């Protein structure tokens, strides 16, 4: 059996897998053979065509199309390009757009998150309650805790370095923003001593995670795209 030409079906059309090592003239012959053999199976469907495995010039693409017209009743309406570089750019754009959405839209959660509970959200999250030790909040956007944050908070998990974590009472076990993770000091505060209880904000700057009191300056530095 010869595998230099393979026809693969997709939802919207067919993909032609071509052997890159063969001479184009030789390949044309094989394409013709292949389609000849599958005419009955393919019928006169309307579909899109794309090429894989080999870079083709416009001239070559046209020649292959001619072969298909000659050998089958297929109606090829368009040629879909699969360009990896373009795809990467598309994906990046999409991700950035999603990141923007996740940072700028949010939802509320009312109640305490207890040990073992994990709250995962696609957007920013505002928690009306405490996040206890052993609990975890994971958000693609920002995390705001209107209570005590004593557990883990992961903000901007899809790579948003502008995400922040804000809490009325900041005593976290771990905070992660984008890919940077920070943990609390090993020496905990003496139990029951809440000397200062100021809202604090955690943010990322030059790859370092900072926690500081929520001041006007800190608010000015927040970037919401």
């Amino acid at each position: 059996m010869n595998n230099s030409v393979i026809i693969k079906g997709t939802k919207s059309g067919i993909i032609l897998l071509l052997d890159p090592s063969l001479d184009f003239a030789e390949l044309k012959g094989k394409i013709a053979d292949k389609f000849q053999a599958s005419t009955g199976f393919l019928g006169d469907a309307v579909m899109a065509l794309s090429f894989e495995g080999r870079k083709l010039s416009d001239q070559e693409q046209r020649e292959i199309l001619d072969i298909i017209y000659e050998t089958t009743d297929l109606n090829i309406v368009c040629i879909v390009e699969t360009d990896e570089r373009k795809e990467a750019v598309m994906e990046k754009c999409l991700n950035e757009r999603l990141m923007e959405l996740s940072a700028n839209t949010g939802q509320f959660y009312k109640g305490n998150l207890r040990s073992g509970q994990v709250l995962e959200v696609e957007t920013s999250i505002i928690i009306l309650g405490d996040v206890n030790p052993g609990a975890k909040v994971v958000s693609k956007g920002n995390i705001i805790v209107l209570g005590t944050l004593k557990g883990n908070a992961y903000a901007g998990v899809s790579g948003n370095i502008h995400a922040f974590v804000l809490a009325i009472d900041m005593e976290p076990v771990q905070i992660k923003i984008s890919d940077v993770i920070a943990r609390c000091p090993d020496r905990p505060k003496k139990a029951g001593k809440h000397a200062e209880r100021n809202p604090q904000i955690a943010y990322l700057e030059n790859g370092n995670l900072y926690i500081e009191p929520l001041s006007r300056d800190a608010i000015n530095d927040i970037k919401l795209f």
Partner: protein
Amino acid sequence: MGEVIVITSGKGGVGKTTTTANVGTGLAKLDKKVVLIDTDIGLRNLDVVLGLENRIVYNLVDVIEGNCRIKQAIIKDKRYPNLYLLPSAQTRDKTSVTPEQMKKLADELREEFDYILMDCPAGIEQGFKNAIAGADSALVVTTPEVSAVRDADRIIGLLEANDLKNTHLIVNRLRQDMVKKGDMMSADDVVEILAIDLIGVVPDDENVVISTNQGEPLVGNDTLAGQAYMNICHRVIGEEVPLLDLNIKGGFMSRLTSMFKKY
């Protein structure tokens, strides 16, 4: 219709069984008809704490499997006419019973008893799921230690996830002297972390160990812990009893002074 209360903690050794025995006995003393169910299959011990070990013929698993009638398995306490115990099986394990079966059993017992107390095993596995299946409310027992509080927090979360929202907290084995020195969390500290209603604080009291070993619950006698348990019982049946913290302080100080007087 009776109320089903599960007594649970997550962590082991914080005093679930002792609490069950004392709260159950206390409620019986308050003229309520009470049955205690030991759901810790394989690690039976509520019967020992109550001093009823030698009367066990049938057990929980026998009832569930239909080897006997409920009436046959339930042991009547020799001292309190209103107190009954359904002991657990010693030779089986937690998988012998399903949550559905426990719920059915609890619903049957509701007809006859005012209170059904479930003594929950430690952990969050099958035994825990069995114990909470039929419960209307929960008493969460914890000691003022970070490990016990952490586990209690997890348990409260799991109870909430199972639609058991009526949960109350018992802080057990509190040592007021250590709290004063700042070496132990106070009941308030624990409540602040767990954010549920406090129903009682039981001081660390050697009389508890003595009474447990004798198989005679100390609820209602003149020891500090006995009074603390009795107060919990009053609150369970809906009476308003002043908070105990001050009592502990006063009681402890008077005990201290009486100790000094001795020497």
